[in-house]
């Protein structure tokens, strides 16, 4: 009985994907919406990277929602796994043999600064090249992860991370409200001068919002990782 149901479900999925594939035609031109964004983002927002321009300005409210979801995840992971927060992570039933190897420790010393630098680069150049706050924040958090693997006795300062993260969130929403007051709406990036297309300081408030996003995402993911460790 269960098998026939599995088979039916599989066939249904197969049918759905088959119709999707059968209906696929490769476009040789952009859709009207894509064309609009490709023209409007550099002209209107001054951002060279169209994706970040859309994410932070046109879909700014969605991005705020995503960050709120991430915040809730970090908070609930904290509540669920907070029981062992008081004890040091290297004392929680881990013997010396399970520690990191020499390769990991030495490799982390070389790579770690580069990972953090790359994360900062990705965050700050979100309006110019691929990336942005979310990606850069994830890169920074993976650097924190490497640090925690290479040096298991590292203690993460949760209080500092929480304050930083909350402050970034407050400034983010404040910038959004300033957008209502001084520009076209919530999270409008026109509250700061647009600048020259392609310059480092350009695209209005996009780099600032991107930096705040990066700080927020990096701090939240770092807290999640550390909660899983301890």
């Amino acid at each position: 009985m269960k098998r026939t149901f599995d088979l039916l479900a599989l066939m249904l999925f197969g049918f759905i994907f088959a119709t999707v594939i059968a209906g696929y035609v490769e476009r040789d031109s952009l859709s009207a919406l894509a064309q609009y964004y490709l023209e409007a983002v550099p002209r209107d927002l001054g951002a060279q990277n169209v994706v970040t321009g859309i994410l932070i300005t046109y879909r700014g409210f969605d991005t705020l929602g995503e960050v709120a979801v991430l915040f809730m995840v970090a908070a609930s992971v904290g509540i669920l796994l907070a029981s062992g927060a008081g004890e040091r992570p290297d004392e929680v039933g881990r013997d010396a043999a399970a520690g990191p190897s020499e390769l990991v420790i030495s490799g982390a010393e070389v790579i770690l600064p580069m990972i953090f630098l790359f994360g900062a680069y990705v965050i700050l150049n979100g309006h110019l090249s691929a990336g942005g706050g979310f990606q850069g924040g994830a890169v920074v958090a993976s650097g924190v992860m490497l640090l925690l693997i290479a040096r298991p006795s590292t203690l993460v300062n949760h209080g500092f991370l929480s304050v930083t993260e909350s402050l970034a969130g407050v400034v983010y929403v404040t910038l959004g409200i300033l957008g209502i007051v001084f520009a076209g709406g919530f999270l409008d990036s026109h509250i700061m001068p647009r600048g020259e297309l392609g310059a480092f300081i350009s695209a209005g408030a996009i780099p600032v919002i991107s930096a705040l996003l990066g700080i927020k995402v990096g701090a939240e993911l770092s807290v999640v990782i550390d909660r899983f460790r301890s």
Partner: protein
Amino acid sequence: MLLELLLLLISASILVSGVLAVWLDNLLPAMVSAGLASLFAAASYVLLAAPDVAMAEAAIGAGLSTLIFLYAIRKTRTGED
């Protein structure tokens, strides 16, 4: 043409590492294999001209989630053995 071949190769790698992740009995290699599937997916996003998505996939899918699973595997082993 070359791009399509490369894309097919990467897609096959995603499939193989995904199937391996399900089949392998040892949890550690299975998890590494799942991370590899994410990494290949990130590579395919780069080829399909979506570097923003690729960066997020590589950092979160291949990096963070794999590590969180590895921590969980380690924890449950020391906790229940």
